[in-house]
């Protein structure tokens, strides 16, 4: 282990919290879709990637960030809903393996379309000084972004929890995730509720994507693969289906990953494996995750 000053430790910690927030935002999308459809939306990471490209082109064509960001969020939400309609809607009653394959296929399709349309070479995400400029605290320099990310995440999370628990739409979402048929009988438009769920999850991923792009300015068509996988793992660790679980999982993963390399730099190559090892551990110890509940099957 390397020795570290308090300043360095704090710097790493804030980086970890930032990364954790990004993971949390994306993980929420996975957990919401799984909660409502019992489906791993493999395409979610690619939707996150598309958000970064929407912003890239928006700014490229001269848009100001405060215009481009909202448009990106809307477009990404629509994209998410489009994926649901085309790849998942008609397979709701099919054997589980079919919808899993469809999810994988959708993911590959989006990735390869991105390669075809945008080209495989990385592009530079726009730098917006308001966010990316650096502030100096004591001996360390931190980007403004590092503070903005967790704040935005918390605001969005609280808004989401309000939506889920205090609004009719939220209640519909909770009902549908318990039982499609009964929800339908109670007059809930199941299709619309599912669409909204995808829309919200994708919108959150879009915010995550924008902030990710600001923090790590290189974007390429396959950039969503690893974060997508990791964020799904975060959702599982927190308890798949639970929004607070996804957030907890995201932070555990983000902070853990940064602290691991900070304290044991020789293990940097294993950075990505950290998430997978955590995954295996939790699947063996408590498969339903930190906040998860057991779902029993009627025999």
């Amino acid at each position, binding site marked *: 282990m390397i020795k570290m000053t308090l300043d360095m430790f704090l710097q790493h910690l804030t980086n970890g919290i930032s990364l954790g927030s990004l993971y949390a935002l994306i993980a929420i999308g996975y957990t919401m879709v799984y909660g409502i459809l019992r489906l791993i939306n493999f395409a979610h990471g690619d939707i996150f990637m598309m958000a970064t490209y929407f912003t890239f082109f928006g700014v490229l064509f001269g848009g100001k960030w405060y215009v481009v960001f909202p448009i990106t969020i809307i477009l990404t939400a629509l994209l998410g809903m489009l994926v649901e309609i085309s790849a998942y809607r008609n397979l709701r009653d099919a054997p589980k393996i079919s919808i899993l*394959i469809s999810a994988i296929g959708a993911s*590959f399709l989006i990735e390869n379309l991105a390669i075809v349309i945008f080209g495989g070479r990385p592009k530079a995400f726009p730098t917006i000084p308001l966010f990316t400029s650096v502030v100096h605290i004591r001996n360390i320099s931190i980007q403004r972004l590092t503070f903005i990310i967790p704040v935005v995440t918390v605001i969005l999370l609280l808004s989401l929890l309000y939506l889920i628990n205090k609004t009719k739409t939220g209640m519909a979402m909770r009902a549908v995730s318990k039982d499609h048929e009964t929800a339908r009988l109670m007059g809930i438009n199941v299709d619309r509720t599912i669409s909204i769920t995808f829309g919200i999850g994708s919108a959150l991923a879009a915010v995550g994507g924008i902030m990710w792009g600001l923090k790590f300015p290189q974007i390429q068509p396959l950039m969503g693969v690893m974060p997508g996988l990791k964020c799904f793992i975060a959702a599982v660790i927190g308890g798949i289906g639970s929004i607070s679980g996804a957030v907890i999982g995201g932070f555990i993963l983000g902070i853990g990953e940064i602290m691991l390399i900070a304290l044991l730099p020789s293990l940097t190559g294993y950075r990505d494996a950290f998430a997978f090892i955590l995954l295996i551990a939790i699947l063996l110890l408590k498969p339903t995750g930190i906040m998860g509940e057991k779902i029993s099957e009627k025999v």
Partner: protein
Amino acid sequence: MKKRDYYLTAISLILLIGFIFYADNNMDAYMVRILNLCAIYTILGLSMNLINGFTGLFSLGHAGFMSVGAYVTAILTLSVNAKVQNFFLKPIAAPLSNVVWPFFPALLLGGALTALVGFLIGAPALRLKGDYLAIATLGFAEIIRVIFTNTQTITNGALGLKGIPAYTNLWWSFGIAIFTIVTMILLINSSYGRAFKAIREDEIAAESMGIDLFKHKVLSFTIGAFFAGIGGGLLGNLLGTIDPLMFRFTLTFNILLIIVLGGIGSITGTVISAFVVTIAQEALRFLDQSINLGFVVIPGVAGMRMVVFSILLMLVVLFYRHGLMGTNEFSWDKFLNVISMKKPLLKGGRK
């Protein structure tokens, strides 16, 4: 099997041997390479189909299995000189520097070690169901890949291995493919194979009929891993170079594509699909490159090929869920009926 079937199968085998002999001596290297790939993907497809199609386990870690087999076989068959050349960053771990094995034992050990890995992964992972199993196996495959990328003295890390002796030829690949097909047929038609299918159909009912779920899942998983390792070994000694990036999820996806198109749960389907898809992937390579029509050149679009295959997969899974063969298998009866164009009994045909 009826006597007639024995003769027909024997004749087909003789024809196949004749074809391989011809191809080996007369076809150009490009075609031979494609044929080898077809046979290897048959083996890989069958190994995945045993686990996913017949036993109904969502296993997405196949690339991990293949990498184990490929690396073991490659490391064992690389000549001492080639090893020195490859491991220039850090020398290969001492015991391995002088070890050079012939192809067949190397392949076998590759398969055996992969089976062991399958067993070790299966023991914890197969306690999980459905989606959880899927991501656990995916996770394990990624862990294997990361380990291989970081064990510089054994696998040469991210640099990969070059100069792997090209031992894979049509005799090996087709021979092992036939062996795999026969093994799968014998396995699936045995009591154990029926137990696998029962697990796929309804785990709770299977367990209530006395089937030890865990033991049988691990069995299926381990056997599948064995053949995946052999396939990986054959692939390494065909391509001549391997590196950890080759064994990403894309590879698993390709094999998944094959078994879905052919019909999950059909040996025949997988075999046909492996050939069709491998040839098609080569044939459609033109999509990625420029098409020169003489008077105009249509620029190639890199990645278009995969777009087409992704769309194909989606179409099949959305509209033709059962793939080409569903769960049906080849039988000489059906085949002869088809080619003699007899009307089926139900439609007024004669017996």
